[in-house]
């Protein structure tokens, strides 16, 4: 039973990792941009939620309504004013600039909020659990996190698969030059993609902040797990990202059960094994963004 519990916890943790990974994967898919500040943006969102909770006396889950649009606008502006200038010159300029952004965000957070660790308190739900019988119980909050991840992935899948904006994302992903000739304003489109990416990672950041404590420097770890989830699942596959997150989550909880220090290591080992055996990931469908 204890093992079953470990695996269930891992699966639910995977939902959170999928939330971190989805935005990263979307951006890479649409414009071949690797956003090394992705994890830091999630922590930035969590700190904005801390302020919203303090100033407006909000429940952190309600703070989502405020923080998600703020991060989306930030993403749009960042893409249009900064990142769009770096595209079309290979992958390196964007890597360097987002690496710099990562440092700027971390230091900005350190200056503003000090090095103290924080936590978002949603008032009870984070410790409440649902008994499943046989001594097994799952937390309401991990369950909620997983459900939100699945809902967001379904929504994103519908957006990419069924709407004009989604078609434009896929067309630009295939061939940005030809997409522009068809009337797609790539600068604006990339802005919308980054807005969507940071909106999703804002949700991830706030859920993380409720689940566990975080500091100004928690971002890079999140980025690493997001990368691992994306690579395990296969680039360009939304559901692969969820499966990648789940595999990583199960590996981490299983490792941690064997010995408390082994959790993260076990995740890395599974990631390396996938990279070795299936370098393209488990569900990679090259050139497709919507499946």
């Amino acid at each position, binding site marked *: 039973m204890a093992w079953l519990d470990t695996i269930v916890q891992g699966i639910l943790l995977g939902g959170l990792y999928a939330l971190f990974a989805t935005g990263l994967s979307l951006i890479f898919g649409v414009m071949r941009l690797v956003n090394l500040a992705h994890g830091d943006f999630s922590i930035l969102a969590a700190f904005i939620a801390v302020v919203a909770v303090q100033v407006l006396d909000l429940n952190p889950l309600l703070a989502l309504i405020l923080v998600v649009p703020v991060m989306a606008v930030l993403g749009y502006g960042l893409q249009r004013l900064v990142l769009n200038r770096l595209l079309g010159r290979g992958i390196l300029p964007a890597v360097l600039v987002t690496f710099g952004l990562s440092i700027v965000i971390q230091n900005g957070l350190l200056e503003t909020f000090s090095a103290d660790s924080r936590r978002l308190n949603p008032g009870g739900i984070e410790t409440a659990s649902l008994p499943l019988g046989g001594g097994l119980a799952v937390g309401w909050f991990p369950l909620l996190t997983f459900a939100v991840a699945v809902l967001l992935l379904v929504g994103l899948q519908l957006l990419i698969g069924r709407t004009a904006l989604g*078609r434009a994302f896929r067309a630009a992903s295939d061939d940005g030059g030809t*997409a*522009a*000739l*068809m*009337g797609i304003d790539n600068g604006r489109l990339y802005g919308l993609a980054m807005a969507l990416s940071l909106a999703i990672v804002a949700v991830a950041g706030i859920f993380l902040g409720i689940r566990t404590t975080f500091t100004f420097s928690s971002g890079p770890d999140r980025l690493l797990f997001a990368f691992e989830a994306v690579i395990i699942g296969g680039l360009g596959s939304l559901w692969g990202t969820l499966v990648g997150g789940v595999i990583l989550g199960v590996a981490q909880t299983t490792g941690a059960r064997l010995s408390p220090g082994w959790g993260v290591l076990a995740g890395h080992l599974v990631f390396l094994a996938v990279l070795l055996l299936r370098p393209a990931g488990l569900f990679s469908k090259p050139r497709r963004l919507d499946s």
Partner: protein
Amino acid sequence: MTLLGVHALSAFYGDFQALFGISLEVAEGETVAVIGANGAGKSTFLRALAGAVPVPRDAVVFDGRPVGGHPAHALVDLGIVLVPEGRKIFPSLSVEENLLVGAYRGRRGPWTLDRVYRLFPVLGERRTQPGTNLSGGEQQMLAIGRGLMANPRLLLVDEISLGLAPLVVQHLYRTLEAVKAEGTTLLVVEQDVSRVLAVAQRVYCFRKGSVSLHDVPARLTREQIAAAYFGA
């Protein structure tokens, strides 16, 4: 009435100059052809008109307005649409989705999915398949259909015949007649000279990035064309 006026257009790829002072006019409703050897600058010229190559503002005048250097999507809004060389079908998109991307700007006009499917019934039969599953000729139909979905006033068509069988090319040129009948102005780049002389009202020949010959097809002799093509 002049729809498109090009005045002493020069264009560069980095340090490499591809076009040297091209001047050309296309009247509303007219079909004009640009011929020339490989590397004469024909495709660069169309891409410059479509906004994919930077050009000076006054070098391109469309419907009385200088539009040189406008971004491609703004030119699509005005009705300048390119059917690119090599078809450039989006592989992640189905046939129908490829057509719908053509309609992205929502310009109004006679062309709808239904009209395009009537023009190219095979596209309707295969609407749910990936666009790149089609044969070369069908992909060219899809590329033309995608361009039409933007409801162009000026359709720029680059090398329809590239890599296609003569019968297929003949069919494609017949469909261009239907496009013309809607009042759409056509600027066609083509290597297949005899084909294009049959449909165009006027012909420009490019050589090494300049206009080497310009006339109505009836007045042109083989020798003149050969000289303009290859240099005398």
